[in-house]
Structure formats: structure tokens, C-alpha cells
């Protein structure tokens, strides 16, 4: 059986009933938010949910290799999802946070570019180490030809491995993943920052300048927390490793979208409850 004809591993099936429960839960949480804070709170929650979905979807693109990749037996970056998402996504979040004063669009794009840049550098250095340090070529085990360049992979793949190194499609996937995850993390941060800047002065009887450190810090730590929750849930979805957008496991993304939306809505609601 060729690698292309291989069926997705067990656990790839959808669970429609649970997806339904998830969507009902999502609507319920949005309803609760509408009840307690119909204006600013609801808008922030929707932004947070979109950010969470971007993170959950984005992580699917990132070539996560895990321990087998460290031994050159599977393609991808040789570490776990939590570390990679934290590296790429949080780099984007910090980049976006610097541009927070320049408006939503500029800041979100900056966050995306920051995350994509971080992943591009990571992917390039990973390939440097694979090729010049470990002496192994880049070859995918999941497809016959690279979907972007069309280069054939089988000749370069060592027997007994699932491929190794970082093929071009994985590299591109990593950059796209960094872009989406960085933009998503920044969006969550900006939503919470705007909400806290608007509500904390009345809550704490202080001026906006005085509460700014608290607004920035609380929004930042919440964004980091939600980022990690979404990244780890996505890691559970792909059961640890993925090669990039050409991997059969990539088709599991609808499950992750539902899970990320519910998890972000839940965490976002709690974060909004602090100030309303």
C-alpha cells in the first residue's frame, strides 16, 4: 500500500453528537454573555472566539515532528505542539502587542507577520541542522510528490522511516500556521485590552493611564492562557504530530474548530466576567 492510499489513523472520525453538544454550548455561552454585557462584552467575546479559531486552525499547518523527528525518523520540527505554538504564536502576540496603539488591523497583521517570521526562521534553521548537521535530506512520507514544487519524495526517503527533514510544503505550512496563530493570539489580546481599558477605570476608580499596566498585564496573561489552551486542544486533535497541510490528519480540522470555539468562548466569558 502506498503512503498516499494509507487511511487516516484511528481517531480521525467525527462524533456528530458531541459536535452538536459543543455548538449548543457555544450558543449558550454567547447567550450568557449577551445577557450580562450586550455591547462591549459581546463584541469582545466574538473577537476572542475568532482569535481562538484562528489559533486552532493555524496550528494544523505547523509541521510538528515530536520525538521521532529528533531522531530523523519522521518529518517536521523536532518538538511538541505546545512548545512550537508557544514559540511561534507568542512571538506574534508580542509583536502585535507593540503595535496595539496603531489600530486593530495594523496590530493583527503585525502579529501575524511576527508569528510567520518566527516560524520561517525556525523552519529554516531546522532544515540547516537536518541537512548540514545530521546529513539527512528532506523527504515527506505522506505524499508521492510535493504538492507545491512537484518534486518526487520517494527516492530520498530512507527505508523504515516516515520521511525526514522538512520538505518545502511543510516549510510553507509552518509559515502559514505562524501567520494564523500569531494573528489569532493578537486578536484575543487586543479584544481584552480594549475591554479592560474601557471598564477598569470605573471599576477601580482610577484614571485610564493609572490602570494601563493592569489592563496590559491581565489581557496579556489571559491571551497567553487561552493561546495555550487552544494549542494543546489542537495538539490532542492531531494526536501529537503532523507533517503540514498535505498530511491526512489535516482533514480533522472541523473538530478542532468546534473545540477551539467552545474553549475560547468559555475562557473569554470568564475573562469578561472579571470586569462586568
Amino acid at each position, binding site marked *: 500500500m502506498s503512503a498516499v492510499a494509507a487511511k487516516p489513523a484511528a481517531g480521525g472520525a467525527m462524533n456528530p453528537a458531541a459536535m452538536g453538544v459543543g455548538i449548543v454550548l457555544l450558543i449558550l455561552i454567547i447567550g450568557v454573555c449577551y445577557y450580562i454585557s450586550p455591547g462591549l462584552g459581546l463584541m469582545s467575546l466574538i473577537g476572542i472566539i475568532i482569535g481562538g479559531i484562528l489559533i486552532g486552525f493555524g496550528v494544523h499547518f505547523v509541521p510538528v515532528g515530536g520525538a521521532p523527528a529528533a531522531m530523523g525518523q519522521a518529518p517536521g520540527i523536532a518538538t511538541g505542539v*505546545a512548545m512550537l505554538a508557544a514559540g511561534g504564536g507568542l512571538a506574534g502576540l508580542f509583536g502585535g502587542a507593540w503595535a496595539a496603539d496603531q489600530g486593530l488591523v495594523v496590530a493583527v497583521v503585525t502579529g501575524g507577520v511576527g508569528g510567520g517570521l518566527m516560524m520561517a526562521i525556525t523552519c529554516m534553521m531546522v532544515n540547516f541542522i537536518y541537512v548540514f548537521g545530521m546529513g539527512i535530506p528532506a523527504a515527506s512520507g505522506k505524499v508521492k510528490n510535493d504538492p507545491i514544487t512537484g518534486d518526487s519524495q520517494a527516492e530520498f526517503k530512507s527505508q523504515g522511516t516516515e520521511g525526514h527533514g522538512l520538505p518545502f510544503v511543510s516549510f510553507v505550512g509552518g509559515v502559514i500556521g505562524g501567520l494564523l496563530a500569531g494573528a489569532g493570539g493578537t486578536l484575543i489580546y487586543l479584544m481584552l485590552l480594549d475591554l479592560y481599558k474601557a471598564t477598569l477605570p470605573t471599576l477601580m476608580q482610577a484614571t485610564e493611564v493609572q490602570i494601563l499596566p493592569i489592563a496590559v498585564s491581565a489581557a496579556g496573561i489571559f491571551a497567553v492562557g487561552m493561546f*495555550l489552551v487552544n494549542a494543546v486542544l489542537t495538539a490532542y486533535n492531531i494526536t501529537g504530530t503532523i507533517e503540514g497541510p498535505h498530511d491526512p490528519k489535516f482533514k480533522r480540522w472541523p473538530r478542532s474548530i468546534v473545540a477551539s470555539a467552545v474553549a475560547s468562548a468559555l475562557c473569554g466569558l470568564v475573562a469578561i466576567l472579571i470586569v462586568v
Partner: protein
Amino acid sequence: MTVKVEVIEGGVPHNQILATGLIASLICLYLSYLNVITGTMWFSFFGGLAVVAALYWGSHTIKVLCSYGIGTGVPSAGMISFGSGVIAMLLATKYNIAAPIVALVLAAVIGLILGYLANEVLNMKIPAMLQALTELAIVGAFTLMGFAVLITGSFTFTALTTGTVTILGLSLPSYQASFIGGCLIAVAFLLGAIAIQHPFNACLGPGWTQDRMLMLTAECGFLSMIMAAVMSFALIPFGPALISLLIAIIGWAYTYSKYFELSKRDAAAWLDAKPIPDVEVQ
């Protein structure tokens, strides 16, 4: 896919560790309320002890969860624990004296929903997942609350966001010199997240023994407590901060020497696994 690769042989059952960690951590958090009753900061160190108790329980929960091959690495469990815990903990601090109880309930609800999402929506189907993610969220919330108490002497939202700076002998309120305003919470977050995942990550394998892993957890907890106690010099008076630091150093030295002994004990044991059969024997 969900094959349990290791079983707990002998040792203390998980439920007993759960109960001990939960109760000890709650009691320590409430003992720190003596600060408010007596109007001093001398009881801040109880926060550090709450951290150690919560981590002790949390690392064993990670062992239970990660014994099923979840495929994402042990650190991810520590990250989701604190990611969900920090959200529950910050809202709970608004409820003054009830904060630890509210953190417990809120973290349990968040953890339960995340566990449901992981198990049913994402189709992980791991029997321990629901309970483990619930426990881990509570551990994350308690650990962060413990660090907050250790560093600022209190677990209320006002105390965590308001500090004072002294300029030329004049005491002024400042939001920047505080646990949240100064973003010390980010340091506490990672101190805890690393301390909770490291012990099982370091001790896993065929030579895993429960007492050695738990001793390493206590050691990691006290090591984090040393860092947090050093940070607490900025926010609480010198005397109480020094007491926290001394307790942390003594606790760390004791647990480290114990861990060293246990490591030597376990290293002497040899597992006769014989991966390559002897073919040369005639």
C-alpha cells in the same frame, strides 16, 4: 491508540494523593488569611506551602493522564493546566475570602468542559481525560493563587492589583508595583507550569517509582518557591519575605538530598530486559 503503557504498582493510590493535595493546599491558602486577621505579612509563606501541596497532587495527575499514550508530550499537560487555571484564578480573586473555594469550583467547571471537548469532540476517548483535566485546572488555579499569596501576602483582587511606592519617605499608591500590574503573574505562571510537568517528564520510563517522582515534585516546588520568595522582597516587608525565603531554601535542601538518595537507590536496581538475545553461547 489509547493503550495504557504503564500501571501504578504499589505506592499510594491516586485518590489519596488527590485528597491530601487538595485539602493541604486549601488549608494553607486559608491559613494565609491570618495576614488579614493579624494585620501583618508574617503568614505569607503559607502560600508557598500551598504551591508545593498543589504541585505534589498535580504531578501525580499528569502521571495518570500521560500513562495513556496521548502523543503530545508531557509538557502540554502542564501548559493546559496553567492556561485554564490562570483564567479561573483571576476571576476567583474578586470574591475576597471565598476566593480559594470559588477558584476550586470555577476551575473544576472549566476543566470539565475542556475534558469533554478533548474526549468527545476531539475523539480522544481516554478514560482518565475528563477527571485529569478537571484536576489539572484546579491545580493550576491553586498554584497561581499560592504564588500570589507568597509574593503579595493576599489573594484578593484589590491587593493583587494595588501596590505602594515610597518616594522621599512619602508612600504613594501605584498600580504598577503589584502582582498583576507588574506582570509577576507571568513569571509565576511559567515557574508553576515547568514545576508541574518536569517531575513526570524526568522520571518516566520502566524505572519509574512513585516516591522518587513525588520527591522531585516537592523539590521543584520549593525551587520555584525560592524564586517567588526572592520576588516577594519587592512587595512585602523584609522580615516576612526573609522567612519565606528561609523556609523555601530549607525545604529545597531537604527534598533535594532526599531525592538524591532515592535516585541512588533506584539507580542500583538493574532491569534484566535483554533486548538482544545471546547467540554466541555454544
